[in-house]
């Protein structure tokens, strides 16, 4: 079991589940991180946080602790 926060730069993964680890997990789903979607980590800033993912044809930056909710296949 791998989290989206553990993806390497440029690595792709398909979302398996969103877990209720962070209070903002609902917003994570609402913004489009849903099971079955392919995401790619396109940027890690100098501080390694936030992480920018490519998702549903757009780029979305979320904090590392929020990316912990996203479980990758």
């Amino acid at each position, binding site marked *: 079991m791998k989290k989206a926060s553990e993806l390497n730069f440029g690595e792709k993964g398909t979302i398996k589940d969103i877990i209720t680890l962070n209070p903002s997990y609902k917003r994570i789903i609402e913004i489009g991180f849903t099971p079955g979607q392919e995401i790619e980590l396109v940027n890690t*800033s*100098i501080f390694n946080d936030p992480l920018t993912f490519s998702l549903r044809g757009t780029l979305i930056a979320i904090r590392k602790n929020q990316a912990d909710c996203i479980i990758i296949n």
Partner: protein
Amino acid sequence: MSKTPLINLVGPPNSGKTTLFNIFSGKHFKTVNYPGSTVEYSSSDFLDKFNINAKILDSPGLISLNANSPDEEVAIESLFNQPNNGIPDLILVTADASQITRHLLLTKQLIEAGFKVILVLTMIDILNRKNLKVNTSLLSEILGIDVVAVNGRTEEGIDELTVKIKENLSKGKNIPDHNILSTFKDKDYLINTFEKIESISSKVIESVTPDIENANKQLNIQNPILRESTQKPDALTLKIDKYLLHKYFGFIFFLLMMGAIFTSIFWLAAPLMDLVDTLFSSLANYAAESLGNNWFSHLISDGIISGTGAVLIFLPQILILFLILGLLEDTGYLARGATLIDKPLSMIGLNGKSFVPMLSGFACAIPAILSTRTIPNRRERFLTIFIIPLMSCSARLPVYVLIIAYLTPPDKPWLAGFFLSFVYLISIILSVVVAFVINKFNKSLIKTQDDSSFILELPTYKLPKLKVVLRNSYENSKEYILRAGPIILVLSLLIWFLTYMPNHSPEFDKTGMTEEEIILLEKSERISNSYAAKIGIFIEPIMNPLGMDWRVGVSLIAAFAAREVFVSSMALIFKVTDDENIQNSLLTAMRDAKIESNGEPLFTTATSIGLIFFFIFALQCISTIAVSRKETGSWRIPILQLTIFTSTAYLFTFLIVNVLRMIGIN
């Protein structure tokens, strides 16, 4: 009596909602707060040409009907019952066609809640560039509501939308079901809804070249390319981000960019500020000369004209700041900047989105506080507002320049430059420390608990629309003048009154003096016997421990109108009589100034450095207090800011002056 129908415009952020509002309202709208909150909405009538008898409201951007913050809660609740207007007759929901799988969530929820809805699809042109389009009639059939595609730039589709709005309004209104909101919070519901939306979008998104589409359909191919191309971010954007969001270069570029903005606020604006300054001083001189030497003439020239000048002198900086920030925002870079700086700011309880307001604070705290509205999290927004007055705004610059000029030898300008950078550095470090401390005591000071999060869509890079940017700079500058202008002006008049009365026509021996000398001596006689002087003498016991006397005290009080007034007030009190070069003669006067009670020099190295620290900390700006009150919705935060910052300023100055003295620097 039938009420004017109400149309509420809602949509996710970046879905073209405001563009649509501007088209219908012709930008003639007023902005109102929801009762008892700091959340704002805009309301307007439709322009006559649309011939729609209804009111249109633009509420804050919403991702879903599931509130994620107290402010979203206000916006969502008011959809169900608009405090001033009741239930909306119709909801126009915008969705970015190129982001349809993400943006349809809100539309679905609005329909499920029982609202009467028209879906407005925007950004069709972006989808077209990918050789795709939306089959709006099919989408309309599936959703069971009217769907109209609109191009915000060419206004294509607006006519069709107008017709649909009229049709929908004539059908009476629906009563939405508030209870359904709780089901929207369910994780399985959300995931299910997304699955439905995906199946809808795969049906309605079609290739622009129908032949291939039909051929595929006949061959029963589930168009994989079609799916693929809606799922890929803009290629050029990804390419640019390889550099601008590069792990190391990205951050270096960001720092260079912000350094450039910071310096341009000062260097680009300097000549314009000089122009405003010269314009208003010559206007004041002209008024004084033509009206004669009497109180009315002085009220007009020194009170009203100089007061207006004090408001307008910061306009160039504010314009330039908003122009640059607007350009950066419109290109799509600003969201990336917020992402790059989020981590360090989150460590002191702030947010990446706090950065731009903090940067604006170096020009003027008022537009800076107004721009914190982009921070969705209330705690982080209030904390940002809290520390903004610590950013050394440009009103403090003339004071620093004067004192640093006093402390450094004139033949070494580099030393003064070094000293000034040091002052800015200190003010940045101190604000970080203060934010850290305030954040630690968040529960008792800010009193708002709000889960911190950072979710930001990085928009596609595009060329900025100069018209939009110019318009926004104009709007922001107007807002500054309207909000801060009256306060600064009234205070300038009050300070004028306090420094002019009661000894308005002083008597002294005028033999052998030129008319100019008489006027200047009258001015300084007036101020030394004025109400302000009496207040100054009253607060002298407070100033003494700082090694300063009533004259500095009066200037500090006068600085509450606007900090740079400190310099002109000092010039008056120290009877500086050379109009040609105020700074040099003021410096000489400061060197000769003695504390009246003991004859010791007033401006020593210790007291001057102390004074700089006083200005770094003290919240001496009534306009900031007023705007902070407005934006935080209560007196709590502005009063805390005033007491904490001003008492810290006093304490710091006291410590610095006395420690410096103890170690022999005097």
